[in-house]
């Protein structure tokens, strides 16, 4: 049987012939090597070297596979929940794309009107382009909500890092002391394994849990502004307190596409700064006149009233004392005067 590995004697010959056989063999001794490695800087001998970041700073290792849509939606919903203090939850029942588009158009028109009004009144914050009706994946949203509610990483991974302005700091780069392994306990981002473990615990129950079933859509607000909430409620969930716009002013709203779509949209509840409200509670929030500024004005007014009455009360005691004493003094003087006359 011939050998499996083909020996190529010619190739071997070429290889050996390439190196000149006539070159003298130079003896090298390690002890005679002239290149010496420099001594490490004195800093390194008594202080440990700064840690090296072993993953891209914007992509820490994640428990869920980052290339999947589910993972990115999870991350997106976490950011939505963290960044919007007011979220309205709707159920949508087989709304067609045309109807959804028509409703979104009406919503944008109404919000732009609010924007213009706020601009005219000189109020800060125009949010019309940030508020929109967004259909969500219910299961992923529920999971993201659990992470946002219950995963509170308290210990910072930057504890070891010295402040950049400290002169003894070897480097000013703020590098978290984490390895590039997923099961590192020190990761604090929402897709880390620790976040997943916390959120998948059955011990925790959120108030919103019963609502998170079936097809859902959210309207998220970047700030709690009853003005915008009012506009959204009057478009998407018109009621007695928040009547729909008049047919004369906005005839588009009464197109069949919008009206049929609205029949299939139900307001379930709202999450306002971590607290959960039903539709009545949402209407109450929407009914706050003038928003947070209005509430502040009311509070200031109430406190001023208290202050005024308090000063008058406190003054009252002193004043009555003064009156008593004064009347007594005049009385005494009269008596004295009368006594002198008698004498």
């Amino acid at each position, binding site marked *: 049987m011939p050998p499996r590995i083909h020996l190529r004697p010619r190739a071997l010959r070429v290889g050996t012939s390439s190196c000149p056989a006539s070159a003298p063999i130079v003896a090298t001794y390690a002890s005679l090597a002239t290149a010496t490695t420099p001594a490490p800087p004195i800093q390194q001998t008594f202080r440990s070297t700064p840690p090296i970041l072993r993953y891209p700073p914007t992509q820490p290792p994640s428990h869920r596979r980052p290339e999947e849509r589910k993972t990115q939606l999870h991350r997106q919903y976490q950011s939505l929940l963290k960044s919007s203090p007011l979220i309205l939850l709707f*159920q949508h*029942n*087989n*709304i067609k794309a045309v109807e959804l588009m028509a409703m979104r158009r009406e919503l944008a028109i109404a919000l732009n009107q609010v924007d213009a009004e706020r601009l005219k009144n000189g109020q800060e914050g125009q949010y019309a382009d940030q508020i929109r009706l967004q259909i969500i994946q219910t299961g992923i949203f529920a999971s993201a909500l659990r992470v946002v509610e219950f995963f509170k990483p308290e210990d910072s991974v930057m504890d070891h890092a010295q402040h950049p302005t400290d002169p003894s700091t070897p480097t000013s780069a703020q590098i978290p002391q984490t390895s590039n392994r997923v099961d590192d306990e020190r990761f604090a981002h929402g897709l880390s394994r620790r976040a997943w473990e916390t959120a998948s615990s059955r011990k925790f129950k959120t108030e919103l849990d*019963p609502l998170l*079933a079936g097809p859902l859509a959210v309207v998220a607000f970047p700030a709690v502004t009853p003005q915008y909430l009012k506009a959204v409620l009057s478009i998407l969930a018109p009621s007695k307190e928040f009547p729909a716009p008049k047919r004369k002013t906005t005839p588009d709203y009464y197109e069949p596409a919008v009206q049929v779509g609205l*029949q299939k949209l139900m307001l379930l509840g709202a999450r306002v700064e971590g607290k959960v409200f*039903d539709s009545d*509670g949402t209407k109450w929030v929407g009914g706050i006149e003038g928003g947070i500024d209005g509430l502040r004005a009311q509070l200031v007014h109430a406190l001023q009233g208290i202050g005024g009455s308090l000063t008058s009360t406190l003054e009252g005691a002193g004043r009555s004392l003064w009156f008593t004493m004064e009347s007594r003094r005049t009385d005494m003087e009269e008596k004295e005067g009368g006594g002198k006359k008698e004498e």
Partner: protein
Amino acid sequence: MITRFLTDVRVKFNPFSPLSKPARLFLSLIPSDARANGLTVATQMLPRASKEPPTLGLKFKDGKEMDLKLEHMRITDVMEEVNRHSRQLARQEDLSGN
């Protein structure tokens, strides 16, 4: 679910109760053009504190009325109940040849 033979749907539920899930899923099973084809859907939301059980009232084209207590039913049970009568109506329609 066969919704061709339904004329009237009345749903009452408290969305904050876990028992209301079949009621909400039933609403999501109604096709998008059913309302245009003569189905009236009336939804009543109870306030959050209410302990009232969720109910589903149905009317069929032959006049049969169905009241379902949803607190011990899953959505598959509800669909089964509705389909049972709807299939009878479908068979009658087939036999009469219209």
